[in-house]
């Protein structure tokens, strides 16, 4: 396996303002350290992925940014504001949108209720229901179905639509493509590009590097709780073979 190096340089042409800045984030589960000094940033309208093997700490990073994992040190900023000590609820209200790996659809709520349960946190940025249904027609068809009656792909659509309807500006998406049929993955890709177009930033955890290379601007490679590489998408694509090898696929 080739030696990987921590590269702090960012690819040329990426000079936007950062929305999310994570610096020196370490996280623990009891005594076991899951993250070591993870630093990363996502700029306005950027799609950034976090790739890495199983257990590398991808979900822990997202959960820490969301405020669901609290045993951490380091610093998290949203729009330049330190949010490290804020609760998950306040982070959500500040514009962080949560799309968990289990999709987090409420079984006892209908599709419509799942969409309208979270508060609208930014009136200007929030997608209207019409706009949601235009981009996720299947959610309209199934709007009165209970959450449990949706297929995996439909649940993923709902999970991604929910923070858009809140008006989140920074989406944290954990394994959007996992376990979905190729057609659905393509649709998810289209939606992520659409989200990007509307100026929303996305931090996407992915194991599917091929998919990652079709939607993202930049990538962070995480291994054993550390960021080992930061790559622009061009470099990422040219080193796909090597990366697949690194990820053990």
């Amino acid at each position: 396996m080739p030696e990987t190096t921590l590269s702090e340089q960012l690819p040329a042409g990426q000079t936007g303002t950062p929305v999310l800045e994570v610096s020196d984030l370490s996280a623990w589960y009891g005594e076991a350290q899951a993250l070591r000094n993870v630093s990363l940033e996502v700029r306005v309208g950027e799609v950034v992925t976090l790739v890495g093997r199983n257990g590398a700490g991808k979900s822990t990073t997202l959960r820490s940014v969301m405020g669901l994992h609290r045993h951490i040190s380091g610093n998290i900023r949203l729009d330049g504001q330190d949010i490290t000590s804020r609760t998950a609820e306040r982070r959500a209200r500040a514009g962080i949108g949560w799309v968990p790996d289990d999709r987090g659809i409420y079984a006892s709520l209908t599709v419509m209720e799942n969409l309208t349960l979270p508060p609208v946190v930014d009136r200007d940025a929030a997608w209207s229901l019409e706009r949601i249904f235009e981009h996720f027609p299947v959610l309209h068809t199934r709007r009165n179905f209970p959450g449990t009656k949706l297929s995996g792909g439909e649940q993923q659509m709902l999970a991604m639509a929910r923070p858009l309807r809140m008006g989140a500006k920074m989406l944290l998406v954990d394994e959007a493509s996992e376990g979905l049929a190729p057609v659905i993955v393509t649709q998810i890709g289209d939606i992520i590009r659409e989200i990007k177009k509307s100026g929303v930033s996305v931090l996407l955890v992915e194991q599917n590097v091929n998919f990652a290379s079709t939607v993202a601007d930049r990538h962070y490679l995480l291994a054993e709780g550390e960021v080992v590489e930061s790559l622009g998408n061009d470099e990422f694509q040219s080193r796909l073979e090597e990366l697949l090898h690194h990820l053990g696929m």
Partner: protein
Amino acid sequence: MGSFIQYTLQGLASGGFYALAALGLAVIFGVLGVVNFSHGSMYMLGAVGTVVALDEFGLSFWASLIVVPLVLFVFGVLLERGLVRWLLKLDPLYNFLLTFGVTLVIVDLVKRRYGSSGMPYDTPAGLRGQIALGGLELPTYQVFAALLSVLVCVAVWVILVKTRVGMIVRAATEEPDRSRALGVNVAMWVTPVFGFGIALAGLAGVLAAPTRSVTADMGTNFIIILFAVVVIGGLGSIFGAVAAGFIVGLVEAFGQAYAPAYAQVLIFVLMAGVLLVKPTGLFGSGEHS
């Protein structure tokens, strides 16, 4: 046939007490993650409160039906604000122990003030005697108690399904952490939900007052059966709590009729049976952790 209907009615009446109280227990568990051990003593306070309201304040049963649950709501709010709230961040076991301690204190205080013997309470005028229904003579009070319990359960159900508060309670019951990560202000509802749950136990107590021997200890047995109800219905399932409440009431009534010595045992046999076939309870999904 006549006795079958009679036992059914009796079962629905006492099942109504379980259903109301279990509903309160379920919403509290759902939103706070607290297994409220003091629920039995709140039921007892409802019944004792009804007797005391009449003896000391001349309050009629009908007034007690409103006033006593309201007083218990306030009591629940104070209990949550004063004690329960401070332990919410810790292991749920702490609040279980806290509410167990609260129970001991409440029961002893009631014993000190009112003694341990039964406090008589007459069936309210207008609900005495029998009512003729479809050629059968049925105890009026039981018909009333069963109907009112069903009505209140349905009303709560409508609130849960049709209102925004209800939606938040359902969502929080499923997964409180996730709701917070979606910016839902669950905290805002914690205190009123706790008070409401306590008020439901109190209402069950008021309804039970004319039918049971009202003593400081009446909640002890009640809470044990209530836990069986919640396990049968599925911990974390609000609908399950209500359904299981009525089921347990029926099992108890038929047990008392045909095998009085085993009436209580039957409930726990039912619980064991349900656990063997479906460990998450009849209506539980086992998702709440």
